[in-house]
């Protein structure tokens, strides 16, 4: 699983950027509809839970996000790998 930020809820406090031990997040520069600058997930592959589907560890970002904006999403790369296998 990889962390994903819900742009409807994020208020741009950047606590996830501070909390993440693997620097998955970085400060965002694009204005959201709500009028904030939400953080962006720049390096999801660094996350401890990348490749895991159950028994997630760490979860500092999910627990410490004050606006409940961070959720776990499945990795999209799995489909690309399948495509690469088919072509190869």
């Amino acid at each position: 699983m990889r962390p994903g930020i819900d742009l409807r809820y994020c208020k741009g406090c950047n606590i996830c950027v501070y909390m993440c031990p693997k620097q998955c997040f970085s400060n965002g520069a694009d204005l959201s509809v709500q009028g904030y600058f939400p953080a962006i997930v720049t390096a999801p592959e660094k996350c401890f839970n990348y490749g895991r589907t159950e028994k997630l560890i760490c979860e500092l970002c999910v627990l410490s996000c004050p606006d409940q904006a961070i959720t776990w999403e499945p990795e999209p790369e799995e489909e690309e790998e399948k495509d690469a296998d088919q072509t190869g």
Partner: protein
Amino acid sequence: MELFDFYDQDRWPHVFCPGCGNGTVMNCFFRAFNEMGWKLDNTVFVSGIGCSSRIPLYINSDAIHTTHGRAIAVATGLKLSRPELDVVVFTGDGDLGAIGGNHFINGCRRNVDLDVICINNNIYGMTGGQASVTTPHDYISTTTPFGSKEYPFDLAELAVAAGANYVARWTTRHVHELTKSIKRSLEKKGFNFVEVVSQCPTNFGRRNKMADPSALLDWFKESSVRRDKVRAAAIDHVDLNLAGQITTGEFVCRDRECYHEKKGGGAHRDGH
């Protein structure tokens, strides 16, 4: 269940300022609540007045929003009249320590089966940043522009002295420890008190050169001292924010008899 199943999603996003610690406490509480297997149908959330007391409004459950400082008094009455319900009190430092201080002490003394989560943000955040009873010494607020000359209340030590069954203090930087402590407090009977030192970037941090929420979290991380390590180093006592330090950890864990489980008859009834 996902964490979001506990929340009233129609009200989202909530009104808390960007970077406020109340949402973090909500996450940790409901993680523990979910692990315990408690049901929202059987739980009542009681709160007073303040930023932290708005939390029950965002939960898909029954809640009582009481007058300022009277959350513990109302929760005591609720628990004694409906002992089958689980009662959780969300309260703030001004609500619990200042105006409701006597209710808090007597709630600890009576040892009614309540779970009290106190979110201590060191300031009266909702009314504009006045100094509260837990504002650290020499920190600036709107009513103390040259630094607070008073020393702060140590709510956790107060609860220990007053006789609460379980007392712990963590900060919003220690999310996993906080989740474990809240789970422990839900497991235990009696008056369980968890104090969470939380960040208020809008009214506390902005005036104390820590406008960024991460600066406040960094301050918590730097100044936190584990209570077991304090004991191991044979330091007698480390006060909350008195020497720039926050004592964290479990303060007490004991099994005193609950108020509504006490047997009838006094100790001297047979003798007289």
